[in-house]
């Protein structure tokens, strides 16, 4: 069924667009996707890392760190999503009363 095509997601449509990448270990980076390969190694330009809470490394803060041009190793990439249309929102799940 899967055949020759190996990628679930065609990253071509993200090239030269902003992407958000989460890496194993908790780092979170955004940048402009400049290139990629089938192993999901990514080239990001003007990359910015979101620094994390020192007490709780799972929480990202508003503090950032400029990284410039980087290569994300594919094996460490956990999640890729476009930055366009990605926003923090209020709880969208309706909580049943008293639950």
């Amino acid at each position, binding site marked *: *069924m*899967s055949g020759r095509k*190996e*990628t*679930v*997601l065609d*990253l071509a449509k993200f090239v030269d667009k902003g992407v*958000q990448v989460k890496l*194993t270990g*908790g780092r979170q980076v955004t940048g402009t996707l400049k290139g990629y390969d089938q192993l*999901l190694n990514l080239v990001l330009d003007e990359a910015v890392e979101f620094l994390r809470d020192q007490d709780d490394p*799972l*929480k990202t803060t508003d503090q950032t760190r400029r990284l410039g041009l980087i290569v994300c190793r594919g094996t460490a*990439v*956990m*999640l*890729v*999503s*476009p930055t*366009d*249309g*990605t*926003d*923090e*929102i*209020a*709880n*969208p*799940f309706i909580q049943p009363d008293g639950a």
Partner: protein
Amino acid sequence: MLPLSLLKTAQGHPMVRTFTFPRMPLHMLVELKNGETYNGHLVNCDTWMNIHLREVICTSKDGDRFWRMPECYIRGNTIKYLRVPDEVIDKVQEETKSRADRKPPGVGRGRGRAREDGPGGRQPKGAGRGLDDSARTTSGGRGRGGSGGKNTGGRGSGRGRG
């Protein structure tokens, strides 16, 4: 039922998108190893369980922050578990049925038969070798003698010509 075939079915699940708000019949939940969860529509998945979701809502580990994203790609090896709609299970059973109807490929046993003959052919050889040990001089001698004779014969004729 294989986990990935369930996912494959879920992926092919008819998803009617109408008008401005798409209906969300196939809303999957994916929890990653880091505790974050992703709710969204399964667009595609592969044999590594890499997943492409659309219209995603990401929830932080502690469940008090939420993000909306139009789509995301999740690497399979970071997934802890997935929650799949119940109706997918009916679909997957249908599919496995139709798969069972297909004929498996049959022939290709010619080699096996040849092998069966093989040991029968070898055994005499082994016995022959055993005999050789006792009667080495005769057989070995024959071989060497024959070849040696040929060679010398060739040379001899050559000399004769010269």
